[in-house]
Structures are given as structure tokens and as C-alpha cells.
């Protein structure tokens, strides 16, 4: 017995191993501590802002050059795209008239029903234009950095979108920059991320949760009620159920659907509306309740 204890002590005297053990424990403590933390200390904010600014001066010009070179290769597509856009604009002006009428109608109805001021303002989202100033090389943290921070009114869990559709959520806010977690990082089986609720544009009563399957690399909408069988090609938008998340942002279109894990729900595979790599300009969606604060 005494001999064994002696051996353990001799073992511990091996300084290198001892330091390694202590280091391991310290690191596990650090990782555990930093897991699921939302506030940042000022040295972290300072470092992030400093590096973010430096990155931004490079990321944006390089991105512009890279995009230009890629655009040269796609010059023939541009004509086709232009035609498509013109057709869309025509459709849009048509819809705008309809929309204005409906909005006026809606306002009147809300007034008749004695909606509160807060309820009336529910859909008045404000958009902040943000430049992407960097992306990280960590394969398990798919984050990008944007050049707006707490000074500009950005808060954690705000939605980030491009012109095409939903991109992600603000995860960490610094003074001048923020970190955005992409929706491809919302893995259902792991203990991370804020769930995003979604609905079909066609029938707004439907409900589902957006998840990303790392193994197949597909965006999914799960837990769809069995009465709302998703049709292929249907558009999926955010439903706004849940705190800060705005509604009506396009997520993608249904590519295929299948019966879910327990046979009671449907799971739809979604083609995302946006591309998540090589982002340059995004919008931060500020919900109206936040503006007064």
C-alpha cells in the first residue's frame, strides 16, 4: 500500500506529466465555462474589434475582386437574369398596389378590434445594413463577423438575412463588431443554438422547426403536423413564433419531404434561398420592441 502511494508520488513528480494534467483540467474548466455564455468581457471585445477591423479592410476589397472575376465568367447569365428581374419588378409593382390596399384594410380592421400600439407595430422591422468582415477557419463554429456591434443597436439572437433569405443569428455582440452563427450550425442533436420556427408561405397555420443535418449537409424543417403535408417547391418562411425572431423571412423551398422519425410528423428537405459561403453584405433585422430601449 505504502509502496503504491510512493509510486504515485514518484509519478506525480514527473513534472511534465503533472503540468499536462493540470493544463488539461484548466482547459476543460475554461471550455465548460465558456460554453453557453453570452456576455463577453472587455478584453475579448477589444481583441475581436481590433482584429475585426483589420480583417474588414482586407476581406471586403478581396471579396469585391473575387466577385468581379467570378462575374466575368457569368456575363452571359446576367442578361437572362436581368430579363427575369424585369419581369419580377413588373409583378412587384402589381403586387405593391394590392399590398397597399390590404395594408390599409388591415390597419382599419386592427383599429376596429382595438389592437394596442405594440401589437400594431409588431411587423415593422428595421433593417441595418452590415458588411461581412471575416469568416473563421474553425470547422465546428460556422461563424462570420459583421461590422456592426452593440453601438449600432445589435443584440444577441437577432436575425441576419441577405436579399435572398435567412442567413443566421447574431451570437456574440462586441462594441463595433458582432459574430453571426449561420443556420447551417443549428444542429438538432447537439446542445447548441436557438431553434428557428418556420411555416409554409401557402398555409400560415403550419409549423415546423429548422434544423441542419451535418451528415447529409441538408437543411431540414422537422416536426411538421401530419395535416400539413409539405408539397415540393413550396416556400418556407420564418413564422416569428419565439422571442426576437422576425416573421416572413424566406428560408428556402421544399425539395422533398418524408415521414418523420415517429411516423406522426413530416420532415421536409429544404433548398436554402441563400448561399452561405462567401457572404459580403447582410441585413440585421431589428424588431420594433427593441427600438425604444
Amino acid at each position, binding site marked *: 500500500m505504502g509502496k503504491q502511494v510512493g509510486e504515485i508520488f514518484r509519478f506525480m513528480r514527473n513534472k511534465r506529466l503533472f503540468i*499536462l494534467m493540470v*493544463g*488539461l483540467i484548466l*482547459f476543460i474548466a*475554461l*471550455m*465548460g465555462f*465558456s*460554453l*453557453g455564455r453570452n456576455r*463577453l468581457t472587455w478584453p*475579448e471585445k477589444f*481583441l*475581436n474589434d481590433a*482584429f475585426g477591423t*483589420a*480583417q*474588414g479592410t*482586407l*476581406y471586403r476589397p*478581396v*471579396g469585391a475582386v*473575387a466577385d468581379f472575376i467570378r462575374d466575368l465568367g457569368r456575363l452571359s447569365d446576367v442578361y437572362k437574369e436581368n430579363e427575369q428581374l424585369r419581369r419580377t419588378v413588373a409583378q412587384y409593382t402589381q403586387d405593391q398596389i394590392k399590398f397597399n390596399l390590404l395594408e390599409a384594410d388591415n390597419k382599419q380592421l386592427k383599429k376596429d378590434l382595438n389592437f394596442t400600439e405594440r401589437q400594431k407595430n409588431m411587423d415593422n422591422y428595421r433593417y441595418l445594413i452590415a458588411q461581412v*468582415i*471575416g*469568416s*473563421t*477557419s*474553425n*470547422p*465546428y*463554429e*460556422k*461563424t462570420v*463577423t459583421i461590422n456592426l456591434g452593440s453601438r449600432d443597436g445589435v443584440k444577441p439572437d437577432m436575425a441576419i438575412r441577405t436579399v435572398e433569405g435567412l442567413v443566421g443569428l447574431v*451570437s*456574440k455582440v462586441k462594441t463595433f463588431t458582432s*459574430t453571426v*452563427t449561420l443556420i447551417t*450550425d443549428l*444542429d438538432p*442533436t*447537439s*446542445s*447548441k443554438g436557438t431553434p428557428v420556427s418556420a411555416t409554409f408561405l401557402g398555409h400560415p397555420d403550419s409549423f415546423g422547426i429548422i434544423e441542419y443535418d*451535418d*451528415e447529409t449537409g441538408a437543411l431540414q424543417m422537422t416536426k411538421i403536423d401530419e395535416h400539413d403535408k409539405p408539397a415540393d417547391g413550396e416556400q418556407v418562411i420564418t413564422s416569428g413564433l419565439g422571442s426576437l425572431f422576425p416573421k416572413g423571412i424566406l428560408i428556402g423551398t421544399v425539395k422533398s419531404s418524408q415521414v418523420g422519425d415517429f411516423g406522426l410528423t413530416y420532415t421536409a428537405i429544404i433548398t436554402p434561398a441563400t*448561399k452561405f*459561403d*462567401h457572404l459580403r453584405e447582410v441585413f440585421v433585422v431589428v424588431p420594433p420592441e427593441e427600438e425604444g430601449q
Partner: protein
Amino acid sequence: MKIRINWVILCAIILLVLENSIVPWLVPPQWSERLLPHLCFILTLFVAGFGGRHVAFMFGLGFGLLQDSLAYGHLIGPYGFGMGLIGYLAGLLAERKSFTIGFFSWVALVSGLMLDSIVYFIYKLFRLTDLQYAQVFYWQIAPTALLQLLIALLFYVPIRRYLVKLSLSSAEDSPE
């Protein structure tokens, strides 16, 4: 041989900025999830080779933690831990064997595989990923390590020339 540590730190900061701003644009879109080179890590290996294990440990630890806090989404520490440990181990190895380019390429390849594996297992430990190791290895770890090896070999000559002070004994065979 002694490494000019101040210049190396300056280089590492510049490389870290480049890694987050320019490298994503150079990698083709189809490969953007697979090729994620860590430039500071490559520099850590050079520090281990030319500066000794203690310097490499501190260097790896510092820049690993810096990288972690820049990419902070879920947790801080995997790269700090991995780069510190590998810097130290590579330093140990380099002190025993002569630091030739062939030996160095082996170190770069194996430690590249090790770093990404350590990071994977940490994320696995905290249940932040549930991918299979074999899949991650094929999908991201192996291609990244090969790319890192290539970058390390590209860096080899400039770093030896500009960032390593030659001691008197070895100055004779390489005139400047």
C-alpha cells in the same frame, strides 16, 4: 540557430488576419468546408523547430486562444489546448532529431492531423458535434492537413532565410 521571436509574433498576427479575411476567398466554394488551413499553427511548428519547446508552447497557447476567441461561437479553448500541446511535442521531437525538411514535412502532416482530431474530440466531448470521426477525417481533417503541409513547405525557405538567426557554427555552410 535562433528564431527572431518578435518578428515571428508580428507575422503570426498578420497571418491570423489573412486567414480570416483572404483565405476564405482563395478556397473554391465547393471546398470551403473542407480546406480550413490554420496559418498560425504552421508558424507554431516552425517556432517549435527553431525556437525550442517552451517558446513553441507559449506561442501555440497564445495564438490558439486568440484564434478561439475570434471564432467564439460555442466555446473557447480547443485550439489553445491543441496548439499549445502540439507545439510542445513538436519542440520535443525537434530537439532530439536534426531538423531537416523531410523530417519537418512529417511533423507538419502528422501534427496537422493531430490538431484537427483534438479539436474534433473536444467538440465531441461537449456534444457540439455528432459527426463520425471517419467522416470528419475524410471530409475535413485529411484535406486540410495536406494543404497545411503544402503551405508549410512554401513557408520553409522564407522563414529560414528571414526569421531565423544563424548561429556561428552553421553560418559557414549557408552564406548570406
